[in-house]
């Protein structure tokens, strides 16, 4: 035992030590209180935001895509509702008994059954909707509606698929839609100030985006804006209740300048031959017809196509997916001659009175090489007017020979060659306006005088798309001015383009038009066969694109045995003269004759536009 003194000492020591311990606790506790204060008071906003972010989940609601109209207000592309059977998975106790109750009403194939069984548990645990069957038939809908009281947790919801009323006519002009990929979706969400992660579509997940044509060019207008459903969720991500619904803004409709009738005529006239037709309303520069053939059904592509059918399309030698109108490169051949003629007059190389002898060939003075015309023996004495009507190569060889290549290139680029001529076309090709630099860089050869001579008749390296030819035709019809081509009247980016031709008078333009009228109306015109196909006057210039160079008609007869070696038929035309309203270009691959093969197509399209 310890004595009294010691007991007193012990009590004092105990008290001191207890105080030391509690002072230590006091510090620890103050630190705790400080931490709580920082969390709840100083950093309150951050944690409040975090708590709200924790418990809310936003689900995007898809907008309905805009409708696409033709220029008279007829619907070209629409959304058709399809109906899906959906269940609220978490409210279904047994999916097997649900499916067996459902089977007499709506039959599911094995794929559908597998999908339902695989996804049921997950959807149920997150309180999400599950699609049981897509694209219900009217009969299935009716059968289900009558018995819907048996299925309180199932309902039918509408989903929209894209439907083109003229599936093959507009496959290249309007194009098709398809499923969106993650990058595309993220950039769309970004543009609508929506968070990129953690967004799950309501159920269909089938958001579609324009892949080609106007569906792609005007996708930002057509697609609309996503709405949102904001749910309260628990820690497992399970939906507790819907808090807010922000309606989607449906896509804007697109009013195009396309003309269904003209498009039909162009498509029918092409009759599945390889080629393209582009028709322009001259005043507005608007594209009224845009056809590339052969074509394919956009509905099949947009809404699901079997891989077999798709492979058939992909492997087709006629390349139906290829948009010949804006991506096909063709030598303009003789259709270039009006532009070359204008160059000659502008630069005082020739005038309308100038004439020369056409022996049927042109000999290049530098190396005595012979450049032949299309007609053996030639056209005799030709002036500019006659050279246009009979399409004298010799005349234009000689004119080009006298031209400065760089000035000529500059001149041609004003007519849209080698240039972008359309504001809203999908991925248009600029084709090729060759320059000496281009030739040196790409072919490792200098520019020969012969190259310039060839350019005078639209052969050689020069190439253009049917779209560029249509623009060229418009510029010629409109005497050197045009708007940039477009599929809509009100695109903000449309520019007015004027060609500076100081030395070309209105009389020159009229004489040029007169010579192009002669191409059809003159008894010696290269397209005289078109005279009877119309009731008004049309100016035109036909062309025949030589794919294989032959010296004689006999040689050509041999090489034409192979269809792929046959000449391309090409024509540009505008009318009704003297105040043309529409310009058109037609290319038919291996069609051989610009005047008599491509010509009737051009006239038929003009007829459908002008008869109105």
């Amino acid at each position, binding site marked *: 035992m310890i004595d009294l003194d010691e007991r007193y000492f012990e009590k004092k020591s105990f008290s001191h*030590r207890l105080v030391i311990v509690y002072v230590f606790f006091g510090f620890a*506790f103050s630190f705790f209180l400080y931490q709580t204060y920082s*969390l709840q008071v100083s950093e309150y906003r951050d944690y409040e935001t975090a708590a709200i972010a924790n418990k809310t989940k936003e689900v995007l609601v898809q907008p309905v895509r805009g409708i696409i109209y033709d220029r008279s207000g007829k619907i070209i592309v629409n959304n058709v509702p399809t109906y899906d059977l959906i269940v609220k998975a978490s409210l279904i106790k047994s999916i097997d008994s649900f499916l067996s109750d459902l089977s007499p009403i709506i039959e599911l194939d094995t794929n559908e059954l597998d999908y339902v069984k695989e996804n049921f548990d997950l959807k149920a645990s997150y309180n999400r909707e599950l699609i049981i069957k897509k694209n219900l038939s009217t009969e299935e809908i009716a059968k289900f509606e009558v018995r819907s009281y048996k299925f309180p947790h199932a309902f039918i919801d509408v989903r929209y698929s894209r439907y083109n009323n003229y599936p093959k006519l507009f496959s290249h002009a309007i194009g098709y839609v398809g499923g969106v990929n993650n990058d595309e979706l993220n950039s769309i969400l970004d543009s609508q100030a929506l968070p990129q992660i953690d967004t799950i579509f309501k159920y269909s997940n089938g958001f579609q985006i324009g892949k080609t044509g106007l569906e792609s060019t005007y996708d930002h207008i057509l697609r609309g804006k996503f709405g949102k459903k904001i749910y309260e969720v628990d820690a497992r991500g399970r939906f507790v209740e819907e808090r807010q619904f922000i309606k989607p803004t449906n896509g804007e409709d697109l009013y195009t300048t396309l003309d269904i009738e003209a498009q039909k005529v162009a498509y029918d006239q092409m009759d599945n031959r390889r080629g393209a037709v582009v028709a322009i309303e001259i005043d507005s520069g608007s594209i009224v017809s845009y056809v590339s053939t052969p074509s394919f059904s956009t509905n099949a592509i947009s809404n699901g196509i079997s891989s077999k059918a798709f492979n058939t399309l992909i492997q087709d030698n006629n390349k139906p997916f290829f948009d010949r109108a804006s991506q096909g490169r063709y030598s303009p051949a003789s259709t270039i001659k009006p532009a070359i003629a204008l160059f000659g007059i502008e630069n005082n190389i020739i005038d309308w009175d100038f004439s020369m002898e056409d022996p049927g060939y042109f000999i290049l003075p530098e190396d005595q090489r012979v450049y032949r015309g299309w007609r053996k023996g030639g056209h005799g004495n030709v002036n500019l007017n006659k050279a246009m009507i009979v399409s004298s190569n010799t005349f234009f060889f000689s004119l080009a020979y006298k031209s400065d290549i760089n000035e000529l290139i500059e001149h041609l680029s004003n007519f849209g060659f080698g240039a972008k001529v359309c504001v809203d076309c999908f991925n248009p090709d600029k084709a090729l306006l060759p320059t000496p630099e281009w030739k040196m860089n790409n072919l490792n050869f200098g520019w020969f005088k012969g190259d310039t001579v060839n350019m005078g008749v639209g052969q050689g390296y020069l190439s253009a798309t049917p779209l560029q030819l249509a623009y060229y035709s418009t510029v010629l019809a409109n005497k050197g001015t045009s708007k940039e081509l477009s599929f809509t009247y009100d695109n903000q980016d449309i520019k007015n383009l004027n060609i500076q031709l100081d030395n070309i008078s209105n009389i020159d333009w009229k004489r040029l038009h007169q010579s192009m009228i002669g191409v059809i109306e003159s008894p010696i015109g290269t397209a005289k066969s078109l005279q009877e196909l119309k009731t008004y006057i049309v100016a035109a210039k036909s062309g025949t694109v030589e794919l294989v160079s032959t010296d004689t008609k006999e040689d050509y007869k041999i090489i034409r045995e192979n269809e792929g070696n046959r000449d391309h038929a090409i024509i540009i035309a505008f009318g009704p003269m003297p105040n043309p309203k529409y310009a058109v270009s037609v290319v038919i691959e291996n069609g051989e004759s610009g005047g008599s093969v491509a010509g009737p197509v051009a006239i038929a399209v003009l007829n459908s536009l002008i008869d109105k």
Partner: protein
Amino acid sequence: MKKKLTFKNFSIYFDQYLFISISLLSVMGLFFLYSASQGDLSAVIKQSIFVGFGLFLMFILSQPDPDFYKIFSSLFIVLAIVLMFATMIFGREINGAKRWLNFGFFTLQTSEIIKIALPIFLASYLYNKPLPISLKHTFITLALIFFIFYLVYSQPDLGTGLVVFMAGIYILFLAGLGWKFIFTSFGLIVLSLPFLWNNFLEPFQRQRILTFIDPSSDPFGSSWNITQSKIAIGSGGMSGKGFQEGSQANLNFLPEAETDFIFAVIAEEFGFLGICILLSFFFFILLRCIYLAVNARDRFCRLTIGGLSLVFASTLFINLGMVVGIIPVVGMPMPFISKGGSSLLSFYIAFGIIISMATHKKLMQK
């Protein structure tokens, strides 16, 4: 004041300050539990039975004379150690931990018993040792503390193990551990920390400490709990979201909302002001314990009150520190508030013994 009500031959020992504040805390705890369990009335009823039984137990345990505890302290610790071994052999394994003994009607967490038995035993062992405590007694005491710490720690239950360990050290310190010894051993401990880290901590414990130091290193693993807890507390703000309005708890973002993290629920629903009111009760209880310890009748009673109240304080601080993210997650309930059986009852038992120590006056020895 502590009361001694005398009825003819027997007296009733009772401290109204502790009794009332503990009862109020317990009743508040029932309300918090109602909210934390998302209105689960059966959990609240079960808890109120424990509370009622606990208060009764506290009252009963206040009655025996401190000498009773002094005499039987060796028996208690032996019994507690036997129970620990029994747990090791017959215990029920839950989530990889063997901490519970099943008695059919009641599952006992045996470390809760030893948490009380050790301080009482150490007090009875040290109360008559001269000051300062000799090296021999210090080592005997330390050996026992480490042995028992190891028993609890190996269950594994690091949290309770630390509380037991700290309780032992407190008593040794309060009993008059020599300052020389304290400074020397402190130096040695600091030097041996790297060795302890590598050899004594389980990988998951090391991970917890690492994520505590850098929470971003493990956003959805062990720090998920602490992140959600901080969000709950922080979003409560100054005045809270209101009773049963805490989204973190109601939507299950908060883990262990009814037990270890119940403080976060309270902080979310009642805000900083609510927390201050709640903590003032704990504060009051601790102040009362200091007063009672200093004024206890003898050294044994002082050491017991001091030791048990420090067990209480350590438990509370570990729980609070863990919930607000200033110490690593070790798994520790909030005394009188968290849902529980053994852990809840252990504190009623501890306070029953504290009251006994404080209210019995020494009979004058003839």
